[in-house]
């Protein structure tokens, strides 16, 4: 599903080249549940951004679903993101002026899906995530857990093959955090590839594959 070959990413910081990722080789199969752990600055988020096609590698090759996606242009990248990748963020990233239902609908609108089908999918998603009575609430009227549920519903609205979660429980208390993790894990049962960046070893430890990163390299992989 996801295949990295000697992928590096470096940034120019103050005229100096700083390597964020060094020669990463990585294979993730469809339906895998992967957690990425490591101290800050170890390159976890950079790796996630590369997988999500929000960023481009400085060198190396990235294959997604068998196709080379290393050198896609903006339009093609956007299309792959729309069709294959879902994002869940630490700070939810809901649009404050839109209702929960509208936030969930957003990827469908952007993809140009007809209104009737959009409504059907949104209704189903609201129900799946227990948000039916919160459909018309704006994000500032929702609790943290509800916000993240809206975000997950939004991330899955296009039925992506890969779900990328960057510290999805970072802004939540333990109980709601665990609920959110349960929801995400349930998705892996439907053959969705879940890749999650986290600080929390208790959460990261639940993953099937656990990647430990230090200084831009994957130093250690443990499987459960």
């Amino acid at each position, binding site marked *: 599903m996801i295949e990295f070959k000697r992928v590096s990413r470096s940034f120019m910081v103050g005229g100096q080249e700083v390597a964020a990722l060094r020669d990463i080789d990585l294979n993730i199969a469809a339906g895998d549940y992967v957690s990425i752990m490591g101290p800050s600055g170890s390159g976890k988020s950079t790796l996630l*951004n590369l997988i*999500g096609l*929000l*960023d481009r590698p400085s060198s190396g090759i990235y294959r997604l679903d068998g196709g080379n996606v290393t050198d896609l242009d*903006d*339009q093609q*990248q*956007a*299309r792959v*993101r*729309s*069709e294959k990748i879902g*994002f869940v*963020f630490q700070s939810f*990233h809901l*649009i*404050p*002026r*839109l209702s929960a239902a*509208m936030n969930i609908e*957003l*990827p469908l*609108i*952007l*993809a*140009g899906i007809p209104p009737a089908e959009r409504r059907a999918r949104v209704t189903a998603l609201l129900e799946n995530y227990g948000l039916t009575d919160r459909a018309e609430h704006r994000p500032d009227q929702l609790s943290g857990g509800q916000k993240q549920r809206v975000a997950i519903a*939004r991330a899955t609205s*296009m039925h992506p093959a890969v779900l990328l979660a960057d510290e999805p429980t970072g802004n939540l208390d333990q109980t709601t955090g665990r609920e959110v993790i349960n929801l995400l894990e349930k998705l892996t049962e439907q053959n969705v590839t879940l890749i999650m960046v986290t600080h929390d070893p208790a959460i990261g430890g639940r993953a099937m594959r656990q990647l430990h990163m230090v200084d831009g390299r994957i130093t250690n992989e443990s499987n459960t």
Partner: protein
Amino acid sequence: MKLLDIAQFAAASLRGSRSRTLLMILAMSIGVASVVVLTALGEGARRYVVNQFSSLGTNLIIVFPGRTETAGIGPGMLLGQIPRELSLDDAQALLRSPAIARIAPLTIGTSQISQNALNREVVVLGSTSEMLKVRHMSMGLGQFLPAGDVHSSESVCVLGSKIRRELFAQESGIGSWVRLGDRRFRVIGVLASQGESMGFNTDEIVIVPVASAHMLFNTSGLFRILVEAKSRDSIAAASRDAEQILTERHHGERDVTVVTQDAVLATFDRILRALTLAVGGIAAISLAVAGILIMNVMLIAVSQRVKEIGLLKALGAPAAQIRKLFFAEAVLLSGIGSVAGLILGEAGVLVIAKLYPALPVVAPWWAVLAAIATSLGTGIMFSVWPARRAARLDPVTALAGR
């Protein structure tokens, strides 16, 4: 992403910052409204003048003594010469031209009019029976000056409607005698009320035969000769003939001025149209200012919504789509602004029309189109840069809100 969805999304973001949106629309609509109102005023002034001129008569040529040269002071003026008078015979001679249908000589003066104990100052016009047709006047009561020898100084007069009212109140006044200066005149008719025309109120004049007026004012010259050409096409021929005939009669000296109504009208028309364009242009500057305001607001919107733009990119919106979204917002803003401005402007025009019924204020269609085009144009033009800026944002940094 469908067009309707783009519009809805843009509308939702405009609703998101309500006060800012309202202020923008206000700025835009004031710009459009000022273009509409100012050009309507200019156009109204133009139409007013044109109407006034046409009410003077049709195919009209005006002859007056003396020659106005545009090349400064003529030699005659320095020597203290006054131009040769136009005589009644000069006027009659004009009828020799085949292009001239009728003429009306005109003498003007002021005199005291009195009837019993009532008296007032009036403008007295001396003319002939033809004047009624040449000047497009109509009678309210009785008859106009009788046709016949222009040299006969009959003691009859025609009153303006206001003069009649003042002198005779409820009575018609026809057949009564009034005193003008040191002569007595019998009232044979009353003009229909026409109101003001070129600053000349026909309701407050008294018309007497031209020969009588000459005796009254002790002159022999004419103030004007009004000439009506046979048709619109013969205006040029008629004015050429008039000038030629009078030059011959004045021993080869071209000492009269012949103006056609059309020439005067065309000049006024040009001046007033230029004026309308000028005020319209000044108003359009406020539209440009509104456009820059839109740009400013859109730039602020882009920097305030960096995270949102990052999110849209992560959700699969390519740069082109982000550009469209911001573009749509600007178009909506200026579109709503221009519609509101149009309504505001037309309302203003209505109010002016109510306040000054004499002025035919109507916003010319070209000004309305130009106002809308300018507002949409500036709105679109000034949103290109912010939209591009939004579209170029790097998704990773944008999501981080940096």
